[in-house]
């Protein structure tokens, strides 16, 4: 089996379900089902995930100072899509592979917007596709104007 192993644990599902405020009994117990967006939490198991502080590496958030907005850090999540081939359950391990998808641009009010897709596949130990996810990110070209966002 290829891909980054993502052990789906009952305790992790419980914490995720609490975070989205969902007390559905289906998300509780040793054989809990995973909520529809749970597979995003595979980020915890991605060794290269850039939005997690790691020992001996610079973190861009605040400390003594305010932190540093990284190059292209003005990027935002524009769309997210999931396709479910079967439910995900606690106790199984999924294997995660991510490949780049399409990229395109649009002209927005504040200039050019660069869109890019990332396709993530979650397969079980038999190699069966369980969940496909498509993430669309958008980065404004040039200086971001987040102060206008509110």
């Amino acid at each position, binding site marked *: 089996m290829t891909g980054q192993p993502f052990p789906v644990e009952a305790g*992790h599902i419980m*914490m*995720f379900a*609490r*975070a*989205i*405020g*969902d007390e*559905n009994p*289906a*998300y509780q117990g040793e054989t809990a*089902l*995973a*909520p*529809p*967006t749970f597979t*995003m*939490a*595979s*980020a*915890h198991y991605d060794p290269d*995930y850039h*939005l*997690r*502080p790691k020992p001996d590496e610079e973190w*861009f*958030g*605040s400390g003594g100072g*305010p*932190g*540093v*907005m990284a190059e292209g*850090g*003005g990027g*935002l*999540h*524009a*769309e*997210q*899509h*999931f*396709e*479910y081939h079967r*439910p995900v359950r606690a106790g199984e391990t999924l294997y995660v592979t991510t490949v780049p998808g399409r990229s395109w641009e649009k002209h927005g009010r504040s200039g050019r917007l660069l869109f890019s897709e990332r396709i993530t596949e979650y397969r079980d130990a038999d190699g069966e596709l369980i969940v496909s996810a*498509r993430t669309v990110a958008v980065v404004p070209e040039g200086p*971001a104007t*987040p*102060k206008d*966002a*509110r």
Partner: protein
Amino acid sequence: MTVSTDDIKVGEVRECVLVDDLKRTRIVQYAGASGDFNPLHTDERFAVEAAGYPGVFAHGMLTMGMTGRVLTDWVGPEALLRYGVRFRAQVWPGDTLTATATVESIEDTPDGLVAHFSLRSVNQDGVEVVTGTASALLEP
């Protein structure tokens, strides 16, 4: 849990209050559970001084995760075939969000009857924060 065509009709609408007065702690809770520790969502000083936002805002995926409840409370989490959203506006601490799911059509497929939904979540001012679609397999 399965839903049959006796329980679900085209045009039927369900509404669900997802959160009332979203707290910063909930956003921190989502960061920990999801693994997305982007300081834009949890680090007020970074969000204001380094990134230039008025403050931290919720992960889009927190809003999508909360919005899913309007579907899963209705058809059950095991019935979903597809779920997708566009993030339309940011969700800020203090926001109250309400999700609505509408049955747009019911399709007869080789696997059984599939209900297609449109979705929207709005804040307390009626501004759409996410819109989307979903499909769920009904009891054959």
